[in-house]
């Protein structure tokens, strides 16, 4: 048996491409109106809770300000991103990957156990005992897969006026379109924070083997 099966490997790289494109085109879209609000409406500086910096060209797709092109790419990549995540969840639930490797047990939530895991991470000891992932990994993957990525899709749909007519309850859940837009922005950066930690830990735990295994599967 491989360390990573083929479908999660395919999804992993498809998702990386989608999230990268969505994030960078999203920063271009953010440049169109650099203020965030809570509630349904907001347009003026005095309504804003956050003034967003202008993101420079090297952080955005396209590399210059182009709202139309950035939106085109954003709404195109939204399809493989959302459908890919849907398939990933369906597969994980059906084949037991979720129960076996990502779902945590009550024992793992004991403070002493969590502390042991933190200390082990700080010592850069990445040996796993028994299960495939340790507690912090399960927590991180579970949060990204189960909360942050779905939240990007839900808030993205809540921002769309067409979806808002089709499913009016969606933006009501987020207490208004401008709140949904704010959460969309914050969640995007939370995913970026995960990305940075993820890359750092891959680099610290034998990057050649980690990347090779995520491409070729590796030995279990």
């Amino acid at each position: 048996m491989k360390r990573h099966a083929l479908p999660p490997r395919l999804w992993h790289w498809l998702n990386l491409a989608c999230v990268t494109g969505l994030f960078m085109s999203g920063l271009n879209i953010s440049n169109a109106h650099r203020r965030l609000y809570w509630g349904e409406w907001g347009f003026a500086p005095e309504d804003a809770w956050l003034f967003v910096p202008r993101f420079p060209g090297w952080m955005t797709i396209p590399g210059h300000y182009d709202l139309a092109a950035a939106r085109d790419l954003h709404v195109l990549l939204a399809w493989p991103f959302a459908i890919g995540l849907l398939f990933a969840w369906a597969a994980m639930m059906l084949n037991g990957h979720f129960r076996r490797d990502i779902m945590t047990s009550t024992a793992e939530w004991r403070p002493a156990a969590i502390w042991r895991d933190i200390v082990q991470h700080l010592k850069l000891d990445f040996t796993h005992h028994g299960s495939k992932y340790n507690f912090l990994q399960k927590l991180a993957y579970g949060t990204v897969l189960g909360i942050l990525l779905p939240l990007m899709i839900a808030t993205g749909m809540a921002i769309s006026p067409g979806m808002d007519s089709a499913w009016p309850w969606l933006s009501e859940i987020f207490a208004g379109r401008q709140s949904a837009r704010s959460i969309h922005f914050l969640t995007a950066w939370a995913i970026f924070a995960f990305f940075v930690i993820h890359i750092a830990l891959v680099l610290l735990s034998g990057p050649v083997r980690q990347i090779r295994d995520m491409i070729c599967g590796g030995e279990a």
Partner: protein
Amino acid sequence: MRRRAVIAGIGALFTSACSRLSDSKAGEALLSAAEDWHRKAHRLLGGRGALAREFDRADISPFFRGNGSTDPDSAEYKAAVQNGFADWRLAVRGLVNNPLSLSLADIAALPQRTQITRHDCVEGWSAIGEWTGPQLALVLEQARLKPEARFIIFHCADRLAGKPYYESIDLADALHPQTIVAHRLNGEALPVRNGAPLRMRVERQLGYKHAKYLTAIEAVAKLDGIGQGKGGYWEDRSGYQWYAGI
């Protein structure tokens, strides 16, 4: 070091491929297909007649921001403002059996719809206002659309960067109950900033579809030959999506 260069190279290739997607014929087709899937998905999930949310008076934003043209500077428009739009006419023409030329009094005499809705700009901001006017469906009923009519074009009195503003929608949105020819905002005559004396409300789409300073409504079979053929001022000029429900 070489591996790092390869990874950087793949990254650069990806971002530049994304940036230049719309330069190729296939890329352009893909982008317009994605736009189409969104439109179909919205109408599948909510039905063609799904209503935009309506709000309470208490939700109205204290000011309604104007964007794009906020004070058209043509001599004709200035003169129309001067005499209180007394001679303003709205033409209804194109693929109709009964072309119309409506005064503001004619429009006010039609059954009115008042709705408090949220206006979403493509840039990201929103404002809530109360709009009043007849449903476009009523106007089109009087004009009697010909069966070959598929799109409704809105012609406007304002010009941006020297080009006349215009917009277009399909019949699903044109005949939608919340699509109105608005002449009042928050109980007052429409301010110049927001499109006086007449503007469209197309509530399930972004702000640039809501044509202001409305002078004519034209029924057509296709969008070719109007402006540069992409169905609207911003669509022609900057490549904005024609379906602005996303």
